């Protein structure tokens, strides 16, 4: 259709207007391939190698999907790391190796995530507490309770549950499939439903959304619940992979900060209203390629942390530096 080609022609004028996700994916591919070639580990560019790369994206990718919703409505969720740990511990405690407890344990974890998401959303949307403080605090509360009670809550997941982390379906690792399905679902909700369109409206222009008759607070609340659900699934996956949860897996994975970073790298703006899950997937792929490349070059774990800190700051700065006015 002529109108569509015309619109495509208008939206793309030069490099600056290339879709961010594509640029990021290209960057990830270049880094990964270059690292493999330079270090002579060309076997990394094989199917098993790539499959390994994709598996690195799963945990952070799942958190990132949820975080995308929170950031799209102009909020943020710093409690995801603590929630991941809580879910992993809760799942392994409830299962105690018993396959019959898999479903109840998953339901209990989802319920916990719903509650935490609702509390976060309530504090932010209805009480008006700064989302950074509100979610930092709920994260602290969770983390403290978890660390205090952990000695009583040890356990391990059912062996059958570990299939979630280690089985393959049609040659595709199950966790990668899980991420793909949930990403598709998230994309579908954002791109194809009214609810998704309203989330963009609320994040992009809250006053305009109000004038258009939307109840802004409800959408912020819903986005926080979705962010918590993303963290919940990530926690379940990690529990399956590690056999049992510990109160530190979320914090040690720096999932709070890194999920924000991949969302922002993927082109979702921190003030809300623009972006989507494709960008988040691109962001997590970039992080995974960097991670894999560090490994190929034999960068030690601590130096990796240094580089990650620098990358997070640089990534946010690329978008933030154009802001007018004061930031504190």
């Amino acid at each position, binding site marked *: 259709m002529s109108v569509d080609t015309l619109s495509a022609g*208008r939206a793309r004028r030069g490099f600056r207007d290339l879709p961010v996700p594509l640029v990021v994916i290209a960057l990830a591919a270049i880094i990964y391939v270059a690292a493999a070639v330079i270090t002579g580990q060309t076997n990394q560019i094989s199917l098993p190698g790539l499959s390994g790369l994709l598996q690195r994206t799963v945990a952070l990718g799942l958190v990132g999907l949820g975080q995308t919703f929170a950031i799209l409505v102009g909020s943020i969720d710093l409690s995801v790391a603590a929630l991941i740990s809580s879910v992993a511990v809760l799942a392994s405690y409830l299962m105690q190796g018993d396959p019959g407890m898999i479903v109840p344990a998953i339901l209990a974890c989802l319920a916990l995530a719903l509650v935490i998401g609702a509390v976060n959303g309530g504090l932010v949307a209805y009480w008006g507490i700064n989302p950074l403080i509100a979610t930092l605090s709920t994260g602290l509360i969770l983390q403290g309770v978890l660390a205090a009670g952990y000695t009583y809550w040890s356990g391990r997941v059912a062996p059958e549950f570990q299939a979630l982390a280690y089985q393959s379906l049609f040659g595709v690792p199950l966790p990668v499939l899980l991420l793909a399905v949930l990403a598709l679902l998230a994309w579908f909700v954002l791109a194809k439903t009214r609810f998704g369109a309203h989330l963009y*409206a609320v994040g992009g222009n809250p006053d305009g959304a109000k004038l258009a008759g939307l109840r802004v607070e409800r959408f912020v609340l819903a986005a926080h619940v979705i962010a918590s659900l993303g963290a919940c699934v990530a926690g379940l996956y990690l529990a399956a992979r590690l056999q049992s949860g510990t109160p530190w897996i979320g914090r040690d994975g720096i999932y709070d900060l890194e999920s924000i970073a991949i969302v922002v790298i993927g082109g979702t703006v921190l003030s809300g209203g623009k972006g989507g899950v494709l960008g988040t997937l691109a962001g997590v792929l970039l992080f995974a390629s960097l991670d894999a490349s560090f490994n190929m070059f034999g960068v030690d774990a601590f130096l990796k942390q240094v580089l990650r800190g620098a990358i997070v700051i640089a990534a946010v700065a690329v978008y933030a530096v154009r802001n007018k006015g004061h930031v504190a």
Partner: protein
Amino acid sequence: MTAVLEMRGIGKAFGAVKALDAVDFDCRAGEIHVICGENGAGKSTLMKVLGGSYRPDTGEVLLEGAPVRFHHPREARAAGISIVHQELSLLPFRTVAENIFTGMEPTRWGLLDRQRMDERARALLRRLGSAIPTRALVADLSIAEQQLVEIAKAMLVDAKVLVMDEPTAALDDRDARSLLDLVVRMKAEGVAVIYISHRMPEVMAIADRITVLKDGRQIWTRDRVDVTVNAIVTAMVGRELQDFYPARAATGPGSPVLEIRGGRNALLRDIDFVARAGEIVGIAGLEDSRKSALAQALFGDTPFSAGEVRIAGRPASIRSPREAAAAGIGYLPGDRKREGIAPRQSVRDNVLLTLQAMAPAFASPNGGARSRPKVDQSLRDMDVRAGDFGQEIATLSGGNQQKAIIARWLMQNPRVFVFVEPTRGIDVAAKAAIYQTMRALADAGRAIVMVSSDLPEIIGVSDRIVVMHQGRIAGELPAGAEEGAVMRLALGVADAPSVREMAS
């Protein structure tokens, strides 16, 4: 022909301020009814009542003869009242179609029906005479195109009444003309159009009837064929000057203190401007005249990108408020709450802020000129009334806060003082005190620049009036100029003679 819309005896007060006082208004199908009025006359408040954002204190709204009460913008929209808002409510990163349908997206089996959105959006835009692609991002559109999208959004529901609140304010002449064509077409389709504007040429070109509001009251409603531009302007400004303006200086102005030659930046063009010792220069203009951008440029907040600045005859570089303060320019911001006060600090600390900013970092906060007796003296000189100067400044009235910020700059002893909307939102007594202060400062040899949207204030206080129009200086008028003359310059309907020509 009966009226589609009737508003009877609408009254609305905010605190003690009556924004609307028993206003009667009606609009018929296939008619363009223009509302004129100065800033703050009540135009926007009336339309917010109509649109369901405000509930009136008194009076009633009738739609096609039946009384209606709206509690939420959504209800007014559903009833067939569409408003094109003055401030765009669009989502820049979403497509044209998505914007038009915000909050009313059509669905099919629970999914967004993008095809229908595109088709209906395209049809709407075609009706507006535009071929904007429906999948283009709003951020990629020109301001005029965005305005069209906003109008299409308003027309999504079959509008019986279409309200346009200064739709041409952001448009250049060509785009404004095509928008006016559109408004005329809407009228031909039988829509009742309410059009708010103070651009006289377009008002005279499209109006069927005209209503003038002033201070929340309806001055008159007349057929366009019965009125002249002069009659409208007179009605808009027709309030007697009050006698609280101070007497002007007996002597003429002194030497130039602040001079700008060829100043320009993104918002301003060809600024030649002089402020002399001992005079108050008033800067007038409508909301889209960018008169506050001129104030910001003078103070280095949004500096000139080209041109020459001289202070007391010497070239100066004013690239930031700090440089301006160091060069002897003072500044009273227009938005007291957002730009003036540090709300949780004490009155004294607010008054001392500029001195603290200029003092060595590790100097005592109460040393020398910053000593408590001196602060308290300057607060008393400005007649700032507070139970205790140690209390938070946010607890003071607006007028007293304003006086405290003036005191802040007086302690710095500036040579030039830029006042932006110095009396906005403060009571009459405090206004008079601030006028007296400005005059006293001028008499003491300072140059005063006053940017104001309040025309009587401009005329009552200024020794010279500079009128802005769309980022340029449209002309200059001497003290005591007629309001009509200022308004004509501001509206761009008259080539006013400059002061120099009048003198010769």
